[in-house]
């Protein structure tokens, strides 16, 4: 059982790393600020989400597992708010379409 859980952790955490890579690549490659914002919020929120998911079986007790999930929810909400705030800032300061 523990081997299965460990394998689950390795697979999901690795997948999380792939999305952190995607976020960084997008942040560096995408052509304009608003497009880069998509990469920022969506890819690394998923990266963190997958890492949280992968760590859940390794948690010593149920409260710390719930705490990890609460952190992910907070980051989702903060990311949603921050990306809109930055998008509005970009729109005000760059004459866009």
């Amino acid at each position, binding site marked *: 059982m523990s081997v299965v859980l460990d394998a689950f952790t390795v697979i999901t955490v690795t997948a999380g790393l792939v999305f952190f890579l995607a976020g960084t690549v997008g942040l560096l490659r995408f052509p304009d600020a608003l497009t880069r914002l998509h990469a920022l919020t969506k890819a690394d929120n998923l990266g963190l989400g997958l890492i949280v998911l992968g760590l859940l079986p390794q948690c010593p007790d149920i409260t710390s597992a719930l705490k990890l999930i609460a952190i992910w929810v907070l980051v989702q*909400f*903060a990311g*949603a*708010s921050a990306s809109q*705030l930055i998008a509005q800032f970009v729109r*005000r300061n760059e004459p866009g379409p």
Partner: protein
Amino acid sequence: MSLLVDLVLVALILMAAVWTVLVRDRRDAVIAFIVLGLLLSLVWMRLYAVDVALTEAAVGGGATGLVLLRACARLLPVEAEGRLPGPGTQIAAGLLSAIAAAGLAAVVLSPPVPYPSLAALAAENIHQVGLGNPVTAVLLAYRSLDTLLEKVVLVLAVIGVWALTPDAFWGGAPGSLKSKHASGALDLLARVLPPFGIVVGIYLVWNGADHPGGTFQGGTVLAAMWLLMMMADLADPPEIRLKRLRRLVVFGPAVFIAAGFAGIFMSGWFLSYPPDYAKPIIVAVEAALALSIAVILGLLVAGPAAEPPKR
């Protein structure tokens, strides 16, 4: 593997630090400084100094950015009027910074051998204080006089900021922190986040007695929530003449000093706690301090009064 982490971390910190100093735009420098704060928090975590990492995460991640970017906004009209410091002031500031940096470098690079430490002695006697977190035990029991004076310095800082108020505005409210650009995202954030922030802030203070955390971390989180509400126009900066506000500012240090005097009667010395009651006294002092720190940090960011008192 851990060596690799450290090397990457050091390289990133050097980059962020050099960039903070070199970049010409003030706002860009502040953003680099926020990045530096995040990296420093990771360094403290790497050193397993969780208390310090928490402080750095709360202060560097939340409070510093607000203070410095607000300062940037304040400097804009000054800059527009061309009232910039002359070369003499700039050279003096640079020299002073260099001297401070050289002094710090000298201390860090040539420590006395063997390294003086009271850690073993402190750890041996920690059971007398009854706290599980050695950092809190040191801060509030072994060197409580230092900690008390630190909190008094915070009160002095508020007085110093208020002293910058022009005579006509004395007693009034600090300038609004409200963003000029209304934003639904900010409004939602400031309506949803504060209750969670209050629970987390109190948790950090309460948990700080036995685990990493404590007054400053918790107080900073609470202050950040108050500032968020002020920026979203859900709360106004309070008028600085309010008695209630001033009582909140001095409440923490006052409780601390009262506990100190109680120590004289209970066990013979100022700020000495009787072993059986040490923990409840310290927790009460911490709670009062956290409240005052939250109010003080909020007032420091809000700044001096910028409008005359109403009525």
